[in-house]
């Protein structure tokens, strides 16, 4: 056990340490936290209002515990979703696996070590979502000390089961995926399968509840816990947790809590057992590639003249698609938000989708546009392709310097990649907006137009920040993303500029209608674009050939 503990501490230290970060970066983190505080407060007060409203509506029929049920189900989903990529990269993609394997550790011990950081990182989300909801619920239900004690313990336990289940599934898939020849491609396919799996569960759940939900709704409302049972059908632990909390300080609560605790402990034991048997089989031989045969025909197919810019774009695409870390961090992460939105909307029964579109229909076009635009900025805001543009090249960056490739061609190819990924996200969002929600046509057209410009600006912005302080001296690709300041800076700047603009326009009654609003946002975007391009040009002139 002490060995396991040592491993966990060492791995956590290696991944989380602030050592090696410059003081400016540390100061930056502090500043960023300060900037984010007001946003946090805003979100908390919104959450509080929401819970209070729901509570008042639901408590007369004794169905208020559905609030808890919903929250538990949502965070479970979120945890599964978040764990897929962190588990994959920590368990399998990180190159340090190999150095641990050669040491005399049991597979389960290495696994516990590798789980530490991905698991602990769930508590960030946990603290931001579940904790306040439990707190507000307690306040509204005027709960006693027993509730808060129980709530805290349940809060601690909640991430366990989603994380463990995800880890077990990932290990199973990797165990069998590892048979194939091309390891890098396998890693990528497995990553995709994980996401397909998460989406698949959603579809099943929706199909299952879609059929009878409508007619029985009224009946369910009448019956205590009826709604809760419906919502948590596939998540028994969420059900147990909700019941334990609504009956706090009774014997029932103790029973259900023990059930939750027992299940969590059981899950961990299961995880260690399965891990002991399968983990190494999935890891061993992960690196390496296949040997192919090469002949004159393949030569013919591969040799063609391409314009330089396009050639560079191709090279970027290949590098991203073939590097598992880049693939999960860039492609999967930037599609995370739109796909997540699709999932959430799919989870809604069709009735509530109609309600959303009815609601949007009744809103002013300006509000629809601003809401959509705000949502888009959140989605596009963190674009890993843009703020890893230069850093991705790592030690091979110097190749651009002795080859006769103009700086603007290299930068251009990188911008195109970041922009293209943003466009794909936009496209998914647009399809959702049109087919699932039915946004009115003019706000939609305006939104799309503005968003395309925003997609470009955010790409330039991310690239600008990365070029300003690139990280080229990495040995493991994850260093390009992990503990880097760039993504957060871009997001914070965008939050301030766009959040501010949207807030002002939203509240300015003198600005009315879609067109005027668009015009103002358009002007803002154009000014930003011009500013960013000016900055980029300056920076390229100053910095491009002096990075090394």
């Amino acid at each position, binding site marked *: 056990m002490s060995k396991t503990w040592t491993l966990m501490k060492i791995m956590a230290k290696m991944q989380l340490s602030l050592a090696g970060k410059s003081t400016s970066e540390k100061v930056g983190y502090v500043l960023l936290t300060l900037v984010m505080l007001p946003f946090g407060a805003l979100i908390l007060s919104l959450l509080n209002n929401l819970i209070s409203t729901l509570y008042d509506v639901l408590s007369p029929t004794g169905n208020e515990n559905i609030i808890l049920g919903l929250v538990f189900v949502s965070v479970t989903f979120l945890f599964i979703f978040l764990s897929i990529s962190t588990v994959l990269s920590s368990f399998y993609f990180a190159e340090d696996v190999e150095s641990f394997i050669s040491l005399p550790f049991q597979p389960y011990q290495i696994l516990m070590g590798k789980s530490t950081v991905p698991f602990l990182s769930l508590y960030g989300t946990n603290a931001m979502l579940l904790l306040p909801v439990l707190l507000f619920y307690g306040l509204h239900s005027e709960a006693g000390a027993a509730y808060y004690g129980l709530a805290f313990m349940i809060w601690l336990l909640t991430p366990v089961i989603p994380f463990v289940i995800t880890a077990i599934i990932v290990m199973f898939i990797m165990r069998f995926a590892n048979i194939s020849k091309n390891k890098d491609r396998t890693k990528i396919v497995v990553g995709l399968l994980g996401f397909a799996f998460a989406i698949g569960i959603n579809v099943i759940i929706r199909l299952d509840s879609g059929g009878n939900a409508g007619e029985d709704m009224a009946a369910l409302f009448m019956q205590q816990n009826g709604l809760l049972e419906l919502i948590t059908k596939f998540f028994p632990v969420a059900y147990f947790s909700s019941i334990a909390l609504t009956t706090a300080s009774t014997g029932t609560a103790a029973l259900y809590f023990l059930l939750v605790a027992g299940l969590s402990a059981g899950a961990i034991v299961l995880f260690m057992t399965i891990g002991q048997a399968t983990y190494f089989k999935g890891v061993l031989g992960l690196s*390496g*590639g*296949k*040997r*192919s*045969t*090469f002949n*004159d025909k*393949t*030569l*013919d197919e*591969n*040799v*063609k*003249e*391409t*314009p*330089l810019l396009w*050639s560079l774009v*191709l*090279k970027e695409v*290949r*590098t991203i698609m*073939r*590097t598992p870390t880049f693939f999960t961090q860039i492609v999967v992460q930037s599609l995370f938000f739109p796909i997540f939105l699709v999932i959430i909307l799919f989870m809604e029964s069709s009735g509530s989708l109609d309600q959303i579109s009815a609601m949007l229909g009744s809103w002013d076009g300006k509000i629809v546009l601003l809401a959509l635009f705000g949502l888009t900025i959140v989605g596009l805001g963190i674009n890993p392709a843009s703020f890893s543009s230069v850093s991705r090249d*790592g*030690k*091979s960056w*110097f*190749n651009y*310097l*002795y*080859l*006769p*490739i*103009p700086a603007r061609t290299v930068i251009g190819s990188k911008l195109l990649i970041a922009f293209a990924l943003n466009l794909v996200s936009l496209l998914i969002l647009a399809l959702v907006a049109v087919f699932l929600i039915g946004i009115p046509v003019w706000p939609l057209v305006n939104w799309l137009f503005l968003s395309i410009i925003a997609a470009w600006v955010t790409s330039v912005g991310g690239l600008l920040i990365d070029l300003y302080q690139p990280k080229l001296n990495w040995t493991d690709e994850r260093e390009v993303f992990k503990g880097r300041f760039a993504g957060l800076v871009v997001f914070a700047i965008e939050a301030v500029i766009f959040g501010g603009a949207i807030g002002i326009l939203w509240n300015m009654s003198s600005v009315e209608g879609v067109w005027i609003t668009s015009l103002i946002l358009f002007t803002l975007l154009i000014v930003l674009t011009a500013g960013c391009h000016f900055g980029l040009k300056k920076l390229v002139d100053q910095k491009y*050939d*002096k990075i*090394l």
Partner: protein
Amino acid sequence: MIQLNNVTKNFAGKQAVKGLNLTIPDGKIFGFLGPNGAGKSTTIKMMTGILPIDEGSITLNGMDISKQPMDVKRVIGYVPDRSDIFLRLKGIEYLNFMADVFNIPSDVREEKITYLTKSFGIYDALGDHIQTYSHGMKQKIVVSGVLLHDPDIWILDEPLTGLDPKSSFTLKEMMREHANKGKIVFFSTHVLEVVEQLCDEVAIINNGQVQFQGAMSEMRQQFKEDDNLERLFLELTQNE
């Protein structure tokens, strides 16, 4: 012709190259000798535009690398000392990329790729990712990529380390051929036998300064008392 005039390079707290002067004529194989840390790679990086020059100037074929970087880069072919090239590409994709960079027409590139990679014995591996290549194979694919455009000035940083005897022989043949076409072959090395056997002219640097430049024959003459090159080298580069 390559000309280095009073070239100086400082790294944080350390002067790697100090007022270096060199003239390298066309049609010669030029050996650049010096002990570890002498400043060879640093000098080469300044010649190829990778590192900015702190003081002095470097002209290649009459063009200043700081003033006309694109024009210079089009006529040079550089083989770096470490093969941190684009590892995720397949061999053939890398060569095709290099051909795009140097605007090589597709019939020429096919012929050249076949010729070069077959000479080096890496043709069969062209469909694999460079990441899976051995050190020597990486070196050979880089050399092949650089020779696609038949550079006027071919600069190699320790090109022979890690090559097996046969590939080493092939590369030396190619260097000779290249120089015979009237072009410059400039390379750095520690291997004295190679210098003796291959070079028309040499420069020896130590602590960022040129200790000697001239034809091989001159060098021997000037240091008649030294019967072998190794002793000469040690003498020239000893740090007092």
